[in-house]
């Protein structure tokens, strides 16, 4: 149990996907203008991460490893992720149109979000078992959502700040992300047990 808690904390804070592994930077810069959209995007990413993390684990362990097809890993993973996202989108549109309205527009963007494929590959690199992969996916998604919300909170304030013209928009967002990454690197010294 404590092992699972460690995995969760490590994924969410110490090795935060945005600030430590640089995964999911594009949505991080693109969608983090308002807290509300940041929250929807974060929820969508976490949801897809958990489902695709679990299904790519099954594919890796019960298909690719069993039949000795390691070289098909990347095409297989990305196809599974792309079709999963498509399925989720169709399902939400048909049965949960209210949820679809809040984060439906972010779903197509998620296919090319490197955090999703990154998570699937990390599960296989770190050799996690099924439960560990599941917890790691939730942790990674929460960490991503946290990063997005912090950033959105700062950028909402930034809109009324007198930023020098060449720094407007992306450059200042990157510099703020750098300072946040510095803060997050403080978690590195976190020890357990």
């Amino acid at each position, binding site marked *: 149990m404590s092992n699972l808690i460690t995995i969760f904390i490590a994924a969410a804070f110490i090795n935060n996907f945005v600030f430590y592994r*640089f995964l999911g930077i594009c949505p991080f810069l693109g969608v983090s203008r308002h807290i509300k959209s940041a929250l929807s995007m974060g929820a969508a990413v976490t949801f897809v991460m958990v489902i695709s993390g679990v299904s790519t684990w099954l594919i890796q362990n019960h298909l690719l490893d069993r039949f000795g097809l390691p070289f098909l*890993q990347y095409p297989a993973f*990305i196809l599974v992720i792309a079709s999963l996202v498509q399925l989720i989108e169709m399902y939400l549109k048909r049965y949960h149109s209210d949820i679809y309205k809040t984060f439906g527009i972010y779903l197509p963007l998620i296919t090319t979000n490197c955090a999703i494929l990154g998570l699937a590959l990390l599960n296989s*690199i770190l050799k996690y078992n099924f439960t560990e992969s599941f917890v790691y996916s939730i942790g990674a998604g929460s960490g991503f959502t946290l990063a997005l919300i912090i950033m959105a909170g700062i950028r909402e304030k930034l809109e009324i700040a007198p930023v020098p013209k*060449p720094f407007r928009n992306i*450059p200042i967002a*990157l510099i703020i992300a750098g300072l946040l990454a510095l803060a997050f*690197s403080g978690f590195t010294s976190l020890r357990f047990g």
Partner: protein
Amino acid sequence: MFQPTKDFLKGLWKQNPAFRLILGMCPTLAVTNMAVNGLAMGLATLFVLVASGIIISIIKGLIPSKVRIPCYIVIIASFVTLADYFLAAFYTDIHKVLGLYIPLIVVNCIILGRMEAFASKNPLLNSIADAFGMGLGFTWALVLLGSVRELLGFGTLFGATLLGSWYPGMLVMKLPTGAFITLGLMIALMNIINEKVRSTAQ
């Protein structure tokens, strides 16, 4: 100007993927702690861009438009696997350092973006020129970023010591923070240069 030349040149500066289009941020930030890593990542991306650009430009008439994105992704993923195995076989050290970020070329938005916006609509020669321009533009951006971070972080450039042993090295440049801040400053600098060029042209 000859159209393919124009397609080639725009990727180098005017539509530089890393500095102007803000695409492919994950590898840009993640592997640029050393110049040589940036170079390797840039060249791997260049290879995948050109190879999949050629294939997609040739078979663009055969792919039904509804399933084009999955088709593109599978083509890209195959070339990424090729690049991955090539690096693992011949450049083991670099392959180890780049690690996770090589397979992530599959979801690099530059590649899918260029396939969707350019290679699927233009003839072969133009697509190749565009892919080379974008790939080289991405490569020089990564090498520049990597050089600045390596010089400030380790006092070396491509592994050769430039600043002597007196230089303690800035730890922050080796950390993720250094990546974010250096890239932010570079994009700002590029904005300033472009603004200067525009005002002198008028």
